[in-house]
């Protein structure tokens, strides 16, 4: 759906600071159809710039971007027909009514005139704004305005949604609703390209992700692949039904086990072996007399992985 080839964007640093800011440094990325693709990175990493370049709002200093096979630079309007864009700021026309706002964009995206009223009503209903159909935009809450923004982005039924920090400023309930909405749209066949600071949210809904820092792509791919490529270790947590068996001492003698920690909630250790190796280890422990109540595998969260990548702990 989206293809970036050696995309570079350079800016001047503010006067007084030497050199240039590279907001995107030869980014090469391929986002397949049907993905929910997350772009993560700290402030100033180049996320919004990348999104704007995908939408044709900014021209890259070098490189090429195609959306659904259409070159964004040479045929921006054709490419934009495939894109629904939501920026990281709440900006709507306060002087319009809710239906007028959506109607404006339906017309601007050149939907057939006879289908516009029905589509406007459908999209407003989809966003749960039916009761506000004839209300002034100025009177909507922040969450409602965000939903109105999404209504605007999907009114022309684009196959790709490009969302820049869509959850920022939303309360927890509105965030949950947004996640459900994005999942539903993805199930309906839309590809979603999303940035967010809230990494657990992204981890929950994304199928793939890319990690960006100082314009450089640190990792990208399926979430599991990204985690594995970062050399993620398997941490196993075992709880016993009765404390008689000295699991900590037994594990310490095992050659594949390291960093054994014992606490009131159970025993935790690092085990780099495969799933089959782990199953064999559990079987051995049971045969040795351990009354195992539960076995849990703990993985690094996206936040932890991001922290490790950005500090250079993992390259």
């Amino acid at each position, binding site marked *: 759906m989206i293809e970036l080839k050696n995309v570079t964007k350079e800016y001047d640093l503010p006067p007084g600071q030497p050199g240039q800011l590279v907001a995107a440094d*030869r980014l*090469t990325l391929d986002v397949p159809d049907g993905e929910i693709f997350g772009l993560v990175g700290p402030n100033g990493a180049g996320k919004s710039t990348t999104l704007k370049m995908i939408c044709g709002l900014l021209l890259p200093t070098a490189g090429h971007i195609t959306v659904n096979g259409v070159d964004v630079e040479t045929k921006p309007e054709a490419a934009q027909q495939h894109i629904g864009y939501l920026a990281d700021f709440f900006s709507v026309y306060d002087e319009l009514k809710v239906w007028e706002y959506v109607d404006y964009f339906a017309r601007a995206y050149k939907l057939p005139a006879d289908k516009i009223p029905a589509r406007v009503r459908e999209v407003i209903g989809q966003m749960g704004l039916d009761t506000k159909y004839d209300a002034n935009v100025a009177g909507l809450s922040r969450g409602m305005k965000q939903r109105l923004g999404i209504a605007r982005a999907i009114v022309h039924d684009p196959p790709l949604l490009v969302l820049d920090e869509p959850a920022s400023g939303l309360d927890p309930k509105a965030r949950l609703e947004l996640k459900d909405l994005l999942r539903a749209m993805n199930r309906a066949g839309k590809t979603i390209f999303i940035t967010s600071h809230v990494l657990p949210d992204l981890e929950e809904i994304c199928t793939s992700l890319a990690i960006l820092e100082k314009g450089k792509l640190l*990792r990208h791919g399926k979430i599991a692949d990204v985690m594995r490529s970062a050399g993620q270790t398997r941490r196993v947590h075992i709880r016993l039904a009765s404390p008689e068996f000295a699991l900590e001492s037994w594990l310490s003698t095992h050659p594949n086990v390291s960093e054994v920690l014992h606490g009131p909630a159970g025993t935790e250790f690092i085990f780099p072996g495969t799933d089959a190796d782990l199953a064999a280890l559990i079987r051995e422990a049971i045969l040795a007399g351990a009354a195992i109540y539960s076995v849990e595998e703990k993985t690094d969260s996206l936040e932890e992985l991001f922290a490790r990548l950005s500090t250079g702990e993992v390259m």
Partner: protein
Amino acid sequence: MLTNPEFIRNVRAQLRPGKAVTTLVIAAVLEFVAGFGLLHITASAAGLTGWGFALLRGLFWIQALILAAGGGIACVNAIYKEKDQNTFDYQRVTRLSPLELALGKLFGAPVYMYFLCLCFTPLVIFAAVEGHQSFSFVLAAYAVLIVGSILVHAFALLISLLTVRGSHTTAIISILVALWLFSNVFTITSRYLYLGSLSPFYSSEIAVQTTWPSTSAEDDFLTSQGRRNFDAPLAPATDRLFGHRLLHLPVLVIIDALFIGWCLLALARNIKRDPNQYELYSPLQTFGLAVFINFVLLAFVNWHANFIDVQAALLTINILVLSALGLAQLRNRDRMRRILRTQGQTAISWIDLTWPTPFLFVTSLAACLMIFAGATYTRNPLAEWSPAFAIFRLLFVIVWLLRDMQFLQWMMLRRGKRPLVMGVLYLSVFYACAWIVLSSFGVFRDADRMPFTAFFLPTPIYLLDHAAWVLRPAIWGSAFVAQWVLVALLIYAQRGTILELAQPTSAEPALEAAS
């Protein structure tokens, strides 16, 4: 236009039923009171001295003020406000073509001002009926009002597009000053141009006209002996196109419409572009605009008064035009970076390294050659004129223009906050200082020392004639050569800045995908 989404949005936002009805009711009450009061005064309404004509003139002047000034301010706000509210990007990603978006804003942004003018029409009709004025003049006045205002709106929209955060007030003041100049400049140029006012305020003049001027087939520019009659006065409401008398109304409509077209071209080229990559016109279009403006000037120029003055006046207008077009062609660091990264560091062309000198040289040469050709074929044969001096003056103007534009381009490629503004400021300070110092030494008063001014100021346009040349040919020549040397030095400095910009920003390759 009625199906243009941007126009519909503006109508919905600005003409809410409550607001529109309130405006209509207030206008109706005011007009009723005014009409009732006027019907009961003893003075006559009819004729040139009647109150009907005075009211008609006043009403059109007020309508011009509302539509041109009020609409102009609305247009200045149109794009700037969208950028400020962060809604402009959403318009840019729609399927609206750039021209549709521009037209929607051009007619949509001032829609309330159009509505206000519409509210005045009952009183205009009342004044015309009471004053026994023919409705053809009222319709003509409305044509002038609307076409002239659209031109102001198109220009204001262009200003709005180029306005950056923090300069909104300056933009509004600029458009009001431009409107004031536009409305008054034709009084000044009437000495050189056989062309009446193109301003929307001219509608108040045409509304009180009582007869259409004669446009007989006979060319009143020529005497019965076939010689040019340079002292023939210009009849009211007429222009002279290459000496042929024309009604001013169609001339105004056509010229205004053509300039609206040029403004729309710039808007359509840029309205959906990345703001860092704005380029008002392509080099070819800029060349075309310079030629078009000079064609209009030459078509209506009045060569009879004082030939040297006419040439100086045309060059002065050209300096303004070519400076504006030159500024529009300057490249910022972002654009230059893109050119460098696209072409590759080793393949920077000589045109890019010397930009805008080659382009401006060709464009200003074309403009100057048009003036030269105009002077050769239509000048007063009795006036003193030397082709060699004319060419030398024109070349002096060209190199002087190149020097300043090359300086501004070099400044614009250097790092800094608002480098172009700083460049213009430095130039202004330089000219002010040069003028003060030269004046205080009395250089302008002494014919022997006057050629030295040509090193610093564009004095050859006004002061270089045969007598001045004979006095100090070496100084005039040295000043001319010095300008070229300065251009070369500035190009050299610019080359250094470009090569510095061409340095790669990152040596490390991006990491490969995880999968």
